[in-house]
């Protein structure tokens, strides 16, 4: 099989490095060939803090993926996250030359360039500029202006940018393992590709991806991204809180969170305790269930409330007709959808990943949402960079390396 038919998504997460290998059939269907996993070290809050260790983990995960899929990986799509990422909406405007009547394909590139004509902080680079809508001579909601007659072409973009050096660090980390980076993608955007269906995006939806060290969110209205961002609080924070509150080691706190943690309060009978087994398997410390849940609840509630405040700065969330979709490892905490619903006052549910051919375990676990989403993103990016909603996606790696902006 030709190499080009394999798509590989790589997420260097705070808790794990995850590689998904998929094959793209000629009819556009994806089949998952294998998933490689390695526990992640040297990553905090979604960003690499120990280059060497992180590199080793990436290597392990890639080797694991190659083993499982029997595919030799040479190019990957890398997910990027971290609190340095920021986004805003911007409009690009161009006026067509006098002698030209019809809007041509090249004008779309021009208006995209115009949309990017905005001063970013010096050390930042563009990651994505996602097309929202075209306007031709002020006419709204034009989907594809090519061929239309007009003087003035405008386009709204959702621009995601981040600190160039930090993005480059992720790229370098992968490159040093000996694998090419095809593109870098904002994790939240990748996760949304699998967490939300086309229909949900059209209806309007908020996707929250709760990862190990960060929480990404993306708001869709009318099928396009209106708002996105990262909050550097994730599952690790919950674990850390438990570890400190109950005075138990991180590893045990993590297990306790996964096995027993819940955000629902008032559901436990007084005296309902969990006994922690010590290393030798004997019953050790007794922990009040309500105490554990209180710690988790407070953290999750606070995080959602912060997110709500952020979202309320723009009112896109009001148009999220399809509701809230939670994904990522952190979404597995019991009752988190109920709490989200309570805080945002919008129906919330755990995202269901659309089936793809391949081992079901791969897509049933929300932990893989980002890596899977990268595959989806990659498919759209590869197959078609022209019209339709696919044109939202553009190449940026060359830009990252050859002169920013």
């Amino acid at each position, binding site marked *: 099989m030709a190499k080009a038919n394999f798509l590989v998504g790589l997420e260097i997460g705070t808790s794990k490095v995850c590689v998904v290998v998929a094959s793209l059939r000629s009819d556009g269907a994806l089949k998952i060939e294998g998933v490689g996993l390695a526990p992640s070290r040297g990553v*905090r*809050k979604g*960003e690499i*803090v120990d280059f060497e260790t992180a590199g080793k983990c990436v290597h392990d995960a890639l080797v694991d993926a190659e083993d499982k899929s029997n595919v030799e990986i040479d190019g990957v799509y890398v997910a990027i996250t971290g*609190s340095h990422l920021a986004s805003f909406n911007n409009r690009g405007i161009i006026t067509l030359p006098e002698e030209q009547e019809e809007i041509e394909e090249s004008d779309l590139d021009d208006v995209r360039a115009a949309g990017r004509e905005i*001063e*970013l*902080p*010096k*050390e930042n680079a563009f990651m994505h500029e996602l097309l929202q809508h075209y306007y031709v001579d002020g006419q709204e909601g034009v989907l594809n202006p090519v061929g239309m007659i007009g003087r003035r072409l405008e386009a709204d973009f959702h621009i995601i940018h981040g600190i160039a050096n930090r993005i480059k660090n992720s790229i370098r980390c992968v490159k040093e393992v000996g694998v090419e980076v095809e593109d870098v993608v904002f994790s939240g955007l990748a996760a949304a590709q699998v967490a939300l269906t086309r229909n949900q995006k059209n209806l309007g939806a908020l996707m929250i991806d709760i990862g190990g060290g960060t929480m990404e969110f993306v708001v869709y209205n009318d099928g396009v991204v209106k708002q996105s961002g990262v*909050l*550097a*609080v994730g599952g*690790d*924070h919950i*674990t*850390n*809180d438990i*570890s*400190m*509150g*109950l005075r138990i080691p*991180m590893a045990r706190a993590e297990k306790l969170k996964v096995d027993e943690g819940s955000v629902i309060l008032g559901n436990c009978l007084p005296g309902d305790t969990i006994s922690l087994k010590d290393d030798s398997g004997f019953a050790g410390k007794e922990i*009040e269930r309500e*105490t554990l849940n*209180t*710690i988790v609840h*407070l*953290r999750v*509630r*606070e*995080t959602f409330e*912060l997110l709500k405040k952020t979202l309320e700065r723009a009112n896109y969330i009001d148009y999220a007709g399809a509701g809230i979709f939670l994904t990522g490892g952190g979404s597995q905490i019991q009752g988190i959808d109920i709490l989200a619903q309570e805080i945002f006052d919008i129906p919330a549910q755990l995202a269901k990943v659309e089936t793809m051919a391949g081992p079901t375990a791969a897509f049933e676990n929300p932990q893989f949402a980002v890596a899977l989403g990268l595959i989806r993103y990659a498919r759209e990016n590869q197959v078609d960079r022209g019209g339709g909603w696919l044109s939202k996606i553009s190449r940026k790696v060359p830009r990252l390396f050859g002169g920013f902006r």
Partner: protein
Amino acid sequence: MIDLTPKNSSGAPPDVSVRLIGIGNAGSNTIDRILLDGLEKAEAMIMNTDQQELTRSVVPNQLQLGSNVTHGLGAGGDPEMGLDAARESVEEIRAAIEDCGMVILSAGLGGGTGSGGAPVVARVAKDAGALVIVFATMPFNFEGRRRRKQAEESLEALRQIADVVICFENDRMGENVSSRAGAHQAFAAADQTISQSVRAVCGLLHKRGLVRIGFDELRSALGTLPAPAVFGFGQAEGENRAHEALEKALKSPLMDRGKLIEKAHNLLVSVSGGPDMTLAEVQVMMDALNRFVGEDTQILFGLQVDGGMGQAMSITILCALSLGGGARQLLRPQEFYTPVPPAAAEISQVETHVTEDLEPAAPEGEASPFYDEPAVDEDVVLPEAVEEPAAPTEPEEPVPAEAPETFFEEEAPSVSNVKKPSETQETLQFEPVNRGRFEKSEPTIVNGEDLDVPTFLRRNVRIK
């Protein structure tokens, strides 16, 4: 025609002449330091009782205070003597600050000359029509309770007189000196911090900026409220200078890594840089700073392009902690602690109140012996000010009901003034231990809260 002469927007007259005066040993040391660091557009001068110290200083303009009272020796840590000495030399002081638009005083409080003399000099300057900014340092804790008390009393007197009082805690300034460093280094660090802030304030008021900060802004940022000042200064060069400068400013000893800024109502920020400073850099800097700032905080922003800066960029952050819980208002001198109905307390109006405040002080039985000094000083120095002590206004005297003397007495010697927003004190205490796993990572600060600290700790929820 268009009038091209620069008009001044602030309270200070256009070509305001600034006199920088150090009083006492600590004050002289600071001025020495400032002169060594370089200072434009201000004339420095020191006043001291101790002849020896005067000769040791590099400052050319010197004035010996009270040669008859102290016979050229120091004031011996006795503010009374400092006061007497200053009083004796009132005429010389007045001559020294004649037709000055602005007087910047630097004094180490707690000793004799500084504590006793500074209020006199401030008053003389004030009466001469100058704007008075006082940079005061509070003694180290190890200098003992008595000195502390003297310092606080003197500080209060200064607050009544001066337009702006910026108060530094020596303890806090010594904090970032390594524990193995000699004591002299701790003092040097303190001097340096003050030197930086004096120069920054001078710079603020003098340099023409793209966005200018005037005296009015300085005053609203700092006022004379009995609140400790928070000051941060950072300068950096190179590619990432915006971030580095801010980082340095936040690391300034009084800043507490930016956590205290959130408590401020008004935050004065001045950014300056060479001609190649870009707007984007300023934006980056301010965005980063904004993460630390509370939602209601007003930022008074100044921007200057200064050819002398070369490739460097600097940021100066100055504010007084807000008096959120009212706790800070307790820091009133004891003499106000009289059975007077609490009225709308507005402390910052200095002028007329001063005299009234100070006047009743003397007869007050329980007043500390020190407190009649400013009053006496009033009598001697400014006869015309004394006429005002209108009896009718006295009952209105601001008496914060919650100003128990005990608070003042007990807290003051041990707790640093700067770090006092009582509501958050607990969080601050916890902070060093409780970021746990995130100890070494970049803190996640949203609305001034460090999200790496467990929520239940920040919310003070009890966990069994």
